[in-house]
């Protein structure tokens, strides 16, 4: 069965599930290879995604900035080593620039965590404030949702948390997450399913005590 849904074609309705086997960054990558100063376009496209991922992983604004900086500098320095492998025949080794970049980010974050000898903290409330200041200030319920989601995700084991962040925050496909985490698509699906089930049960447990008589 042919594999990867690496590049999602976003569009109307069911077109979202369509599969493109071309790396949408190909032209930008080629331009950056010819002229490193053109790397700026790739940087602008992925800055928020990489930073967001690092922030969810490290839970600290300064650490996230540090990891983001290292990721992009490493990507620029190693761009010559990137190989696009986005065809179905590439199977488990499939990779696009975004997958490759996030693999670097994942390694940088792991290295940073090792250096500082600490587990990620759960600066959950703080995140809600940074996330989307305009919306959050307008609606306290949204802030609560964000804080609660942070708390729930923060309690998960690292691999489940990582998979959920990539799925929900970065809106990556299962194939992309599999490429980044170095697992099969099936394993990623199970990881996400279990994480959601754990969070769902947690939510149900918390909701129950306040129900009677209120």
């Amino acid at each position, binding site marked *: 069965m042919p594999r990867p849904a690496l590049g999602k074609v976003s569009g109307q309705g069911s077109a979202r599930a369509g599969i493109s086997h071309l790396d949408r960054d190909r032209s930008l990558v080629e331009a950056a290879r010819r002229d490193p100063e053109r790397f700026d376009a790739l940087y602008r496209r992925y*800055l928020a995604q990489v930073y967001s991922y690092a922030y969810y992983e490290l839970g600290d604004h300064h650490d996230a900035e540090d990891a983001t900086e290292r990721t992009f500098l490493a990507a620029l*320095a*190693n761009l010559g080593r990137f190989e696009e492998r986005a065809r179905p025949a590439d199977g488990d080794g499939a990779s696009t620039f975004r997958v490759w970049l996030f693999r670097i980010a994942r390694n940088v974050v792991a*290295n940073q965590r090792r250096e500082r000898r600490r587990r990620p903290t759960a600066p959950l409330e703080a995140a809600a404030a940074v996330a989307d200041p305009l919306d959050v200030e307008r609606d306290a319920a949204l802030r609560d949702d964000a804080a609660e989601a942070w708390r729930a995700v923060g309690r998960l084991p690292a691999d489940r948390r990582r998979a959920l962040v990539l799925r*929900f925050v970065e809106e990556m496909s*299962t194939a992309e997450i599999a490429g980044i985490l170095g697992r099969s698509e099936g394993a990623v699906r199970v990881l996400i399913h279990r994480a*959601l089930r754990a969070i769902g049960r947690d939510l149900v447990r918390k909701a129950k005590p306040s129900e009677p008589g209120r």
Partner: protein
Amino acid sequence: MTLPGRDAGEADALLTDRYLESLLAAGDRHAEDAPAEARLDDAVRAAATRLRRGLVRVHPSFRFEERLANRLNEAARSMRLAPAAGGEGSVAVRSIQPADPGDFDPLADPDSNDAVGRARPLLIGGALTSAAISLAGAAFVAWRRARPLRSPMARAARAAHAERPRRAD
């Protein structure tokens, strides 16, 4: 041997995955939820809709964005200049990387423990090798100077050398 539990788990995971696809697509249309199959676990659905609302992208500050953009441009310029000067582009970039990455390979799999220290043996090995060569060279010169010369030619050369200061006197 049958693996009914595993099959059921994978089927549920696939169901969840399909639901997430439609949920994320619904988000593009600013819809709160998406239709789901009846077999989908209610807890999974509740968690997914909650996370969909709560897990938002975090943006860096504009100041950071511009600072890093400048740094990358600087690095890119040095990559262009280095080959023109006959050097290696990667060397120029490495020199402006933040404090530590020289010790780890950002492209290695972090779970394999290769990410950290993969470059280190090469670096340490290189340093050790050059230090060893230097030490061996110094030791050889010292040994040569201290060693009594046995060949007639060497003895003649030494005698001629010893004669020189006397003639000057």
